[in-house]
């Protein structure tokens, strides 16, 4: 996986975000990725671009520089589960930052440390920090519990995001009656949980994942809908098209929200 080299603006110091949403389990809650805090800070704290995380760190550690990684506004655990936050990515971002400036000490926010399964949150100075970021050696079998944990985490987080989308969709859908509401919500749920389960399989753009997923599962979904609707082809076809649209939609949602 490759990452774009950030522009110079990326590492301009920003002021701490003033407030954060209280419903961040229903929607991603992002702030601009980049550095926050004071220019003279000699300690770097790495966190994700989740508004609450950046705000809390800015308040309790005002004399440090905070690096908020672009994770779509998800929490650290969710970002790690969806493959947005990885050691490799952290190493890339730190490398780009250290090319411009060194720090006496580099630390990880505690939720980032937990999400990345790091032994310690203190990474030493700039040079040591990069060395500690080497990816863990992992075999297929050695990775299984980790994958299962991520799978259950994705299931947990997609439930919150799905509830948020149900709230968003309900008003227009209920105008057309509860049957229409149920059909679209079932399609949205099938797409959401299916995508969450298979999310890390391909290292491609979010919409491409959604398109690939919907192409793969269009036929089984059509058969399911055909049985569900008592052999009514137009309704089964409609359900399949709605499923494809919902897959694309949920894949865009799972990529996070930008500011």
């Amino acid at each position: 996986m490759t990452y774009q080299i950030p522009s110079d603006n990326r590492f301009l110091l920003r002021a701490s975000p003033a407030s954060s949403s209280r419903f961040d389990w229903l929607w991603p809650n992002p702030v601009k990725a980049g550095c926050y805090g004071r220019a003279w800070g000699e300690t770097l704290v790495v966190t994700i671009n989740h508004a609450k995380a950046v705000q809390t760190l800015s308040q309790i550690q005002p004399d440090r520089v905070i690096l908020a990684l672009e994770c779509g506004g998800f929490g650290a655990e969710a970002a790690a589960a969806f493959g947005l936050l990885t050691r490799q990515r952290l190493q890339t971002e730190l490398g780009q930052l250290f090319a411009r400036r060194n720090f006496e000490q580099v630390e990880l926010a505690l939720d980032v440390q937990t999400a990345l399964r790091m032994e310690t949150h203190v990474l030493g100075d700039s040079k040591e920090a990069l060395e500690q970021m080497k990816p863990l050696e992992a075999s297929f079998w050695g990775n299984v519990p980790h994958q299962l944990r991520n799978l259950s985490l994705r299931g947990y987080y997609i439930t919150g995001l799905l509830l948020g989308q149900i709230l968003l969709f309900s008003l227009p859908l209920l105008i057309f009656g509860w049957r229409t509401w149920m059909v679209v919500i079932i399609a949205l749920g099938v797409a959401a949980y299916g995508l969450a389960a298979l999310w890390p399989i391909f290292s491609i753009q979010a919409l491409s994942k959604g398109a690939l997923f919907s192409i793969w599962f269009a036929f089984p979904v059509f058969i399911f809908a055909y049985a569900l609707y008592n052999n009514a082809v137009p309704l089964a076809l409609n359900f399949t098209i709605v499923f494809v649209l919902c897959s694309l939609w949920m894949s865009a949602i799972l990529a996070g929200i930008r500011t």
Partner: protein
Amino acid sequence: MKPLLTLRLEIILGMVLALTSAVMNTYAQQIAISNSYPVASTPISPSPAPYKTLEGVWMVRVIFHQASPPEIIKVKYLSAGRISVFPAGDEKIQVLDSQGAILYEQALQIVFLAGDPPAPVNSREMVMMVPHLEDDSQLRVLTTQGEAIYDLPDTKR
């Protein structure tokens, strides 16, 4: 992976997607209902003649709704009677045999107006007479909103 949407765009596009899905679903429901209308493939013979007293008819009480499927409230066997005749329309009442084949069909038009002067109503209750035929097993009422099926009792014989 770069995020694609801003929160404002997410809300607007989400609403548009929900509306599109809902319109498509409503349209598909209408197509499915019109496609599922069973049509008698062969002329129904012998066709019970109207305006003539028959031996054995079913008196059927049906409520037609403007926004939901019809309801068959009551079915009663009468030893003699005349079948109902209505202006032809999109709604249908059918007598089926045990295999689902149509033995008798009467098209009718429901006007959702009632009272004097006529005022729009959401539901209309109607009583209809349909013939009792040799192998009849079910009654079916079809409207653009859906269908209702009633299993005819054996106690009539």
